[in-house]
């Protein structure tokens, strides 16, 4: 049931502005920052779906990003697969991998699930690192040495891809939260046992959420690797991706729809500002996270939701226009 409201109009206007930016000749640097923002936004939204709405604090999303990235790279490298097949195939490969792993992973709950998923990243990194390079005349490519990714896309087309994926992730979240699955997930998050007695199939709800989040995380990874142009194990399975997702969601506000948007913007800005103070950047990040968790555990949005002005704004924005 779709009802037009100021929120959607705002979303369309902002999207159009973002889409017009390359046309009016904005600088490459700004475009690059915006590109990162949209990739981070998709990653953060999906992590929020897992940790904020499904109670699945998965720390293994980088592993699925790496699997998607590697699948994409290999399809392009070996088979010259067209992108419109290679990208869905890469996301499907990551999702299939997640589906198989969900059998052992879902036997664990809470912290155990988090630790189990965290190990995936390292297992994949070692596994891919040990993959001996396939000799190709001229260059040490393949397996552990990595692949180049030649898509033939212009940077501006890749920017548009990122824009589409980022905006799609916002719409997807709205759609899921309004769906039967979303209602089930929120009930499970509040009280698993009570949810079961309502007839909610807990395993199935969590599995669907896990698979949807993995598919979209893989999609964001594909867009990122198309831009980066190469992939190798240490970067692909790096837990620094986890930093991005966790920080964006926690700083912005977990279990809120707006949180990841605000959080991703902050994380992108930090990632651009902090390298100038390289020796202090871990300190600055650490202090920032500590402050957020100490003073406003529900994040910036959680803090703002306590103010009357913000709630009035939300109410105004979500009022249906007839």
């Amino acid at each position, binding site marked *: 049931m779709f009802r037009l409201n100021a929120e959607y109009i705002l979303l369309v206007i902002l999207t159009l502005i973002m889409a017009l930016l390359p046309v009016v000749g904005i600088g490459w640097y700004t475009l690059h920052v915006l590109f990162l923002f949209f990739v981070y936004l998709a990653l953060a939204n999906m992590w929020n779906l897992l940790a904020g709405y499904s109670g699945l604090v998965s720390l293994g999303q980088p592993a699925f990003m790496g699997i998607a990235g590697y699948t994409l790279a290999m399809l392009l490298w070996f088979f010259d697969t067209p992108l419109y097949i290679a990208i869905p195939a890469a996301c499907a490969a990551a999702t299939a991998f997640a589906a198989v792993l969900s059998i052992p992973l879902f036997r664990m709950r809470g912290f155990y699930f988090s630790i189990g998923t965290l190990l995936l990243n390292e297992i994949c990194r070692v596994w891919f690192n040990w993959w001996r390079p396939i000799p190709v005349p001229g260059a040490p490519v393949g397996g552990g040495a990595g692949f180049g990714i030649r898509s033939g896309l212009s940077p501006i087309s890749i920017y548009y891809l990122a824009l589409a994926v980022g905006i799609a992730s916002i719409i997807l979240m709205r759609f899921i939260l309004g769906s*039967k699955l979303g*209602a*089930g997930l*929120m*009930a499970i*998050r*509040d*009280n698993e*046992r*009570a*949810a*079961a*007695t*309502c*007839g*909610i*199939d*807990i395993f199935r709800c969590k599995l669907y959420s896990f698979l949807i989040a993995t598919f979209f995380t893989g999609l964001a990874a594909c867009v990122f690797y198309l831009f980066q142009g190469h992939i190798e194990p240490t970067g692909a399975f790096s837990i620094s991706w986890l930093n991005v997702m966790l920080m964006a969601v926690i700083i912005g506000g977990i279990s809120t729809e707006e949180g990841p948007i605000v959080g991703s913007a902050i994380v992108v800005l930090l990632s651009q500002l902090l390298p100038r103070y390289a020796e202090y950047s871990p300190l600055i990040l650490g202090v920032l996270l500590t402050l957020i968790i100490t003073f406003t555990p529900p994040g910036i949005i959680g803090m703002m939701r306590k103010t009357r002005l913000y709630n009035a704004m939300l109410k105004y924005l979500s009022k249906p226009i007839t």
Partner: protein
Amino acid sequence: MPGEPLLKLESVSIYYGNFCAVKNVSLSVYEGEIVSLIGANGAGKTTVMNAIMGLVHPAKGSIIFEGKRIDKLDTSQIVSLGVSLVPEGRRIFSTLTVYENLMAGAYTPRARAQREQMLKRVYDLFPILQERSKQLAGTLSGGEQQMLAIGRALMSNPKLLLLDEISLGLSPIVTLKLYDAIRRINSEGTTILLVEQNVRQSLKISSRAYILKSGEIVLSGYSKDLKDEEEIKSAYFGV
């Protein structure tokens, strides 16, 4: 009692690890009845309820609902068959609104089809829930939360409603109100199995009762005959 019972437990035993929580329990609930299961703390009442719902699985024995074995099924499948539980300690979804809580109760496809009707029935039964429908469930009073928990369980339009200690921690006035509502739910055609520590209250409302002591049924019969039985006292205070 004529015909087949709606729910039948046949020599059910349930273990938690090595500990036997429920030993060889058999009981039947016939359509249209209110049956109470009485016992002291730790007698295994909640375990029996959880076993019927498929939240724990019995090691021995069988649970039969409408002639079909349900002790191997998942909870969600059992709910679809028409069994619903109001869990001990209410367990409402505190960050969801009252309305969303009720909608979560109508999750199974069978329930979704008739949720508007059921919502009307629940609001009719507990008008306060309609007044508070947009409020977060965590902000309700204890009695209102219990009404919400009962309402949520009713949303799946169950044939058999299981009530686990609904009077726990509530004032006598609220308890009386809830029991009136339960009588009404029963008179509208829902069979009820009730677990209580409050013996007098549950004997008053039920037609039959089973007395559970340390996981075994020590006594059963018509509630009106049980009121003065010494066994009830011994089930509570031990010998």
